[in-house]
């Protein structure tokens, strides 16, 4: 078994697998270590499949927009697999004036970064999607948003990277990183095995925190459950990605006809857990019914659609709601990509591409200085900055 390589990636989710793919494609010798038994079993396989820009923080928008313009349209061909990418727009729905004000504010801030997203009235929303209930008062509309199949996309990156010679190891639980001559160099597994590389990328979701703690780095993040349900196959109804100002549900109709809907019953951050993310997260009895009530409030005609499966997944919630994607100054050779806060799927391809660029010592396609690991200032200092 070969235990040395140019680049070592910890985590086989969409970010880690995509980074492995782009590195292998450029001829870099790369190894991926996955702690769980399954590739991409964390947030990458347990999300609503949104490939969206609208509703995002302006710090994330530049790279998400870059990925949607440059990578997603040709990704299926690139990976020789159907990612089910569908770019038919995103309706973010509102029922009250407060909702519409919130959506307008989001649209305005996204517009400043150059995103085409605008407010539409109830009538125009119903022209785009005739199944909306009378309760819908308006929406924001972003025509370049869409959705894809997160399960297939993540595994497609894995398969493509593997074809190009990237090595993947599962059940490889990382205990710590060790420095040699001041640089990140060794990765020690729980079973005592040691891997070595010139560059180490940590993209392991919430597990990243403990791993980088071993070299004195920390990110303020927490473990959060996201829950989703899926209906049996329905006749084709609509292609848009959906979200709401009330954040009571999100989702879309998939290529095979089933609907995938996510949502929250309000206790996502307080689900019992054992501090590892390898376990199967619970799907609670509160979420399914809550999501069903939300969905049928916007789409009454779906009340007879049958739910065939509910599931939950771990996501890594960041204190300020956006990820860390950054080299670590104090530990040369270490690159950190974590705390994607439950919306890291759509940005996976471009994040993987930029992690590969960082590992090769190149400039990234988009400036990421707003997402550094050392941005977390005390609140009194942040307030001063804002004023």
């Amino acid at each position, binding site marked *: 078994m070969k235990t040395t390589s140019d680049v070592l990636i910890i985590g086989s989710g969409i970010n880690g697998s995509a980074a492995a793919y782009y590195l292998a494609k450029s001829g870099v010798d790369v190894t991926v270590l996955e702690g769980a038994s399954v590739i991409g079993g964390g947030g990458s396989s347990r999300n609503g499949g949104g490939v969206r820009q609208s509703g995002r923080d302006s710090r994330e928008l530049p790279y998400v927009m870059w990925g949607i313009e440059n990578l997603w349209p040709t990704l299926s061909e690139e990976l020789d697999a159907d990612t089910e990418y569908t770019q038919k727009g995103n309706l973010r729905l509102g029922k009250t004036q407060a909702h519409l004000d919130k959506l307008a504010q989001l649209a305005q801030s996204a517009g400043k970064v150059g995103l085409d997203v605008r407010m539409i009235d109830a009538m125009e929303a119903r022209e785009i999607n005739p199944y909306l209930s009378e309760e819908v008062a308006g929406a924001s509309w972003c025509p370049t948003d869409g959705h894809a199949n997160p399960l297939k996309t993540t595994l497609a990156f894995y398969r493509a990277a593997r074809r190009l010679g990237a090595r993947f190891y599962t059940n*490889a639980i990382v205990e710590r990183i060790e420095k040699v001559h001041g640089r990140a160099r060794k990765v020690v*597994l729980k079973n005592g095995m040691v891997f070595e590389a010139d560059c180490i990328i940590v993209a392991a979701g919430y597990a990243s925190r403990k791993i980088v703690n071993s070299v004195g780095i920390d990110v303020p993040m927490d473990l959060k459950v996201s829950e989703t349900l899926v209906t049996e196959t329905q006749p084709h109804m609509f292609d848009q990605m959906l979200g709401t100002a009330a954040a009571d549900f999100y989702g879309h109709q998939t290529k095979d006809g089933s609907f995938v809907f996510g949502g929250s019953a309000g206790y996502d951050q307080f689900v019992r857990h054992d501090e590892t993310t390898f376990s199967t997260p619970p799907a609670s009895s509160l979420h399914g019914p809550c999501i069903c009530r939300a969905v*049928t409030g916007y789409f009454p005609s779906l009340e007879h659609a049958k739910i065939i*499966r509910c599931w939950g997944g771990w996501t890594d919630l960041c204190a300020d709601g956006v990820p860390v994607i950054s080299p670590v100054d104090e530990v040369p050779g270490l690159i950190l990509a974590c705390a994607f806060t439950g919306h890291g799927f759509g940005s996976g391809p471009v994040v993987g591409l930029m992690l590969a660029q960082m590992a090769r010592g190149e400039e990234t396609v988009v400036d990421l200085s707003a997402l550094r690991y050392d941005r977390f200032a005390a609140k009194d200092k942040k307030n001063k900055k804002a004023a």
Partner: protein
Amino acid sequence: MTQITDRSMRTAAFKPEADDDMLICRCEEITKGEIRRAVYEGMYEITEIRRWLRVGMGLCQGQTCTKLVQRIVAKELGVSPAQLESAAARGPVRPIEMACMGNEKGGVC
């Protein structure tokens, strides 16, 4: 020392078999050959086969084909079917209408 799993251990060329056209997952119409090829392409876990091919993700949620899929994957990997981890079982056990699931008051829905 707990063994880690090398995902690159099977590099021999894929060999088609006579009964590769046999339907294994009837809900999603997935054949034996597609399952064998997925293993060859690196999908070593039942959960990955499911996510990659939609095996067992249809109406019956794998109640018909799970055992068959396990046997095919185990044979390809050269292990006992009992060594393979099953995909997570999730509710509801039978399909249930959204109006009914959202109704926690009880009674007829």
